[in-house]
């Protein structure tokens, strides 16, 4: 019976049931949780996994989490307290050298027993605001992984259903945000328990043999869908490279990222050889839990685009199998313990952007121009009057590059990131902070092109108590690149000033740690803007005029770059535009 195939109808039924379970797990987790990074940003992932640690299904939450839990499970196997899974166990795990994505992303894993036997796992990961690192919230400029805070490896928070109060108290005692940390862990436990219950119901209904035959076949199906797409790309090596600003301490040392994409039949290898060596700060990427996950995500976006696909591809292990990742030991993408490795997001996002640039000659209809490919992860913290810490983590958005059939979206989470922002009003009601500005940038324009790049955001946050700011961002050095004649986008900026002296502005680097602030200090983030796709002279003049009316383009920029002539009333002068375009076209091609 094992070798039999399941008919496609039963398969569709089980696939739908698995998706629903994963969604429900994610839903419960973010609705129940307390810290804004989970409840508003939804920086989490949840799903079910088989005994080979293959993903059976995963919630549509944040891509960085999707695909990371199998690595956690392999790490837990190596470290599991007592070495044996029992019914009722709940494991907490975050060790980056045992598979974790990075230390703040705690996994909660519960084994699923059916008729007395271990058959699968329900689990989730969520970003916690403070696990007792050297600085509040985020952490960049530290010497090793032990400075990142508490490390959990295969620890049982519940042993056979019995809560380990010693461990719980230990966790509480070591966080600046003890209540939020512990309550959010409890929310994770509730979500994983729901996954256990729902999967057991499914097993009861269809039987274990049928379910696992179905999940195997669903993974094969997803794998086949991706392999078909890879096989359609001409075999060969495709390369792109870029520079990251710095490691958050050594300011004038840019860090190369070199991406070689090797297509061989229906397999693809992402080779990061040639990228920077591991850094002395936390600006490193855990290989298993983050680097590989980013490469998987790149090919799902590129080749199994859910917006353009005619039928859905189940979210499971199958889509990871054709993708192989190489990063030399001791490099930024595969650090050696005890190197710190908490700040890993911008490298991952840049890797994806470079994979797209590398493949642009052979996939011009699928790739997009350079995106902000960054993130702005901000940690604001301070002390309340009663001596308690307040800690707030914020994920700020970026912008997309122009695309083969449409403009790059403005001010939106980019590539691996897909969180939600915090309502300014909710923030103001609960934290000693005020948002002073949140709108599109007006100091630069996005990359011009037949399809323009997305315009980035500017956000100003004012703190009302003394405290600390840590920022993890990128792209102050290299702007997102234009493609096929499109122009480059714009770099990002970080500024700090005090509201009492708004003219005394300090330009900050893209990454800094534990910067001490005074009451009334304002941190201003300008996100990078996307590059353009295709020749700006081919953008329809009426579209350029619409951009001018909506301030996505200036009248002068329309003239200089797009060759579009508008009169004082912003009416389109068609003849003059034709003439202007004819004049500049030969100069451009030179």
């Amino acid at each position, binding site marked *: 019976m094992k070798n039999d195939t399941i008919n496609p109808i039963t398969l569709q039924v089980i696939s739908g049931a698995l998706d629903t379970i994963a969604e429900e797990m994610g839903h419960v987790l973010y609705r129940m949780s307390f810290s804004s990074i989970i409840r508003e940003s939804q920086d989490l992932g949840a799903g079910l996994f088989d005994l080979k640690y293959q993903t059976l299904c995963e919630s549509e939450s944040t891509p960085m989490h999707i695909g990371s839990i199998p690595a956690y499970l392999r790490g837990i196997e190596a470290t599991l307290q007592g070495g044996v899974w029992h019914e009722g166990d709940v494991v907490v795990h975050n060790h980056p050298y045992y598979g974790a994505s990075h230390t703040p992303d705690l996994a909660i894993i519960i084994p699923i027993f059916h008729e007395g036997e271990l058959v699968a796992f329900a689990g989730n990961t969520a970003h916690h605001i403070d696990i007792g690192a050297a600085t509040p919230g985020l952490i960049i400029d530290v010497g090793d992984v032990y400075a990142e805070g508490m490390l959990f490896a295969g620890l049982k928070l519940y042993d056979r259903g019995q809560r380990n109060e010693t461990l719980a108290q230990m966790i509480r005692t070591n966080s600046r945000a003890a209540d939020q940390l512990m309550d959010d862990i409890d929310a994770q436990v509730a979500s994983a328990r729901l996954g256990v219950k729902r999967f057991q119901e499914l097993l009861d209904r269809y039987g274990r043999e049928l379910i696992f035959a179905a999940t195997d076949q669903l993974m094969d199906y997803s794998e086949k869908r991706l392999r078909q797409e890879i096989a359609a790309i001409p075999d060969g090596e495709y390369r792109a490279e870029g520079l990251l600003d710095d490691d958050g301490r050594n300011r004038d040392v840019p860090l190369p990222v070199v991406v070689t994409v090797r297509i061989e039949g229906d397999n693809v290898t992402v080779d990061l050889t040639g990228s920077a060596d591991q850094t002395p700060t936390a600006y490193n990427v855990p290989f298993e839990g983050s680097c590989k996950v980013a490469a998987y995500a790149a090919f799902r976006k590129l080749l199994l685009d859910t917006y353009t696909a005619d039928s859905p591809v189940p979210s499971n292990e199958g889509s990871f199998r054709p993708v192989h990742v190489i990063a030399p030991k001791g490099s930024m993408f595969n650090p050696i313990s005890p190197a710190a490795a908490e700040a890993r997001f911008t490298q991952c996002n840049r890797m994806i952007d470079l994979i797209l640039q590398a493949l642009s000659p052979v996939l011009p209809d699928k790739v997009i121009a350079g995106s902000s490919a960054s993130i702005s992860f901000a940690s604001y913290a301070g002390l309340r009057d009663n001596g308690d810490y307040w800690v707030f983590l914020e994920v700020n958005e970026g912008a997309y590059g122009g695309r083969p059939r449409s403009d790059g979206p*403005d001010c939106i989470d980019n590539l691996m990131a897909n*969180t939600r922002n915090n309502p300014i009003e909710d923030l103001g009601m609960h934290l000693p902070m005020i948002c002073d500005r949140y709108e599109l940038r007006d100091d630069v324009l996005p990359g011009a092109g037949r399809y323009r790049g997305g315009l980035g955001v500017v956000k100003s946050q004012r703190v009302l108590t003394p405290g600390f700011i840590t920022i993890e961002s990128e792209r102050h050095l290299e702007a997102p690149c234009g493609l096929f004649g499109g122009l480059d986008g714009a770099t990002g900026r970080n500024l700090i000033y005090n509201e009492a002296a708004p003219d005394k502005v300090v330009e900050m680097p893209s990454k800094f740690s534990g910067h001490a602030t005074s009451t009334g200090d304002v941190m201003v983030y300008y996100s990078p803007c996307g590059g353009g796709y295709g020749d700006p002279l081919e953008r329809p003049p009426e579209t350029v005029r619409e951009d001018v009316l909506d301030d996505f383009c200036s009248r002068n920029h329309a003239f200089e770059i797009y060759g579009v002539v508008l009169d004082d009333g912003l009416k389109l002068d068609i003849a003059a535009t034709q003439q202007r375009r004819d004049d500049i076209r030969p100069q451009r091609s030179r």
Partner: protein
Amino acid sequence: MARLGVDVGGTNTDLILETFADDPVGAGIFQHKVPSTQQDQSIGVVRGIVELCEKAAISTADIKRIVHGTTVATNAALEHDGANVGMLTTRGFRDILHIGRHKRPHNFSLHFDVPWQTRPLVKRRNRLAVTERILPPDGRIETALDENEVRAAARRLRDNGVDAVIVCFLFSFLNDAHERRAQEIVREIVPDIYVWRSSEVADVMREFERFSTTAMNAFVGPKTARYLSRLEAKLSDQGIGANLRIMQSNGGLATIDQCIDRPVNTLMSGPAGGVIGGRHFADMIGEANILSVDIGGTSADISALSDGELRIKNSRDATVADHPVLTPIIDMITIGAGGGSIAYVDSAGGFNVGPRSAGAEPGPACYGLGGTEPTVTDANVVLGRLDADRLLGGDLGATTERAERAIFEKIAEPLGLSVTDAALGILRVVNNNMALAIRSASVARGIDPREFALMPFGGAGPVHGPALAAEVGAKYVIVPPAPGITAAAGLLATDMKYEVTRSLLRDLDAAGADELATVDAELTRLETECRDRLWADGIASADIEMQRIAECRYHGQGFELRIDMPAGTLDENNVQTVIEAFHARHENDYGYRFAGAVVELVTLRVIGRGHCAKLDWPRLPTAHDEADTAQALLYERETVFDDGRSLTTPRYDRACLAAGQVINGPAILVERDSTSLVPPGWQAVVTEHGNIRISEQPPHATNASNPRVEEAFS
């Protein structure tokens, strides 16, 4: 004092007329259907009313009330065909509507669309920032409103030719003084257009959602207002002096004036009637727990009602056309699964049904109107569950052969299945998709479907009823009388209903007597506002009922749950019942309570209801012999059931059935626009009002093995 309900759908406008003993024709119910006129829905509506009155032989002047379910606002939103809206907002925050929650609609996509950027409710050129600043947490003014800037902006918007203006300032839920003043100034400068402020449309915290709701109100507003005014005028031209009431998204009725003031409340006017209608027919057999499943050509609307109560969506989840709208909307899940949903095999051999639909044109392959792709209707035809020659009363000229050919070419041959197995597969997949949606509407909301009856309606609903009930474990199926006009019937089965809200953030555990008194005073103010509106509509005090709700969360959470407030003044004693009710609700919904956490009040909501008379559906004559159904028997044909057996199955004319009659499966009950299936082993009972209750009978212990698992391996 006849009453009339008129529901405008995508294809047809359905009407129902209820007359009473004091009418010249006596008490009765009359139905009618005319094609919808989408360019101007009022043409079809008025035509339908006039024709129905002729049919019923009553004068249009005898109609005292018309209740209307409209899709004018819905279509304006979905087709992005609304007003040119201008917006004044706080300086520094011009693009809140453009940024949204900065989350992409797709995780794994490079080519995704961002609807709020590509189809904005307010174009960026019309979003103008003015200087003003109100600060949390107390609403104090940090920077006064610059009135000259407001004047300049209003003039610019006037010059840009906007049809409506919204005033959306940050923290206006704490202090609306700036919004009110700016609104006044805009009205002075542009007196002839609609001007709304966010604090009157949705007086709640969270800027993007509040602004978006206000923008949607303005986007659909002028169109809705024009339509309703035109309809009123046309009715009056026809000498119809009936008072006109509109179904709102929350399942309650409102006057024309209220709808013109808050058009955003009518966005789900259409589907709301179906849910109310489902409830009304279930009520006739004393069933308070139902899963209503309204299946049309392209989509299915699913909603759960427990204890006869409509579930209202958590306003955090309510969106229309991908824009958040913080208005009370019946909690309904809509999925792309209906009679016209297309089945196909994808490039990697995966089998899918929907969401793409053949719609009414070209329609299912069996119609012969040019459709070549197999649909759910084609699968039902091939299996003999729908008779091609009787579809829509036989007017279509549909054939079984065309359905077979489409299924053979597109599904059976590529997958190596027989046509029958392929057709069964199409139904299993589409039923499963609907069952998953029913579970999301029930299990995922803490509702156990085993305690619920499944009520399928809409033209395509009843044929799927038993399979869906079995799949989700519902206790039985109720098919309402006239399933094609359930939504129109629902219009005559509900109350006037208004809701008002105010965000008032307070930690309830720590609140002292003063703070509780503030909360109580606010509740009283909201109640007064609601009651005044109902009085203005002519509702007598005795018919008014108030519901007071606290939307709470644990301090620090992001999502609120609704708790009923105790009667009487809120004080330090009864606030404990609110706190405990919240803990209990949290545990019920999520499976866990944070016993030590502080409970925070976020929003107060008052719902005022004005009772209206409910549709009185006539009783059927009682059968002389429950088992003698000969008078209704049409003919017998082969029908294939879910286990693959083909059985000779009698067809009965539903119109000829009497109350109390019992029909054992296999059987099919046919009426003009709908077909009900009674599978083998199930039994249909006609109830006194003509509902058909179809339930699975206890098995005779014949087939012990589980056919589902056996058949799953091929």
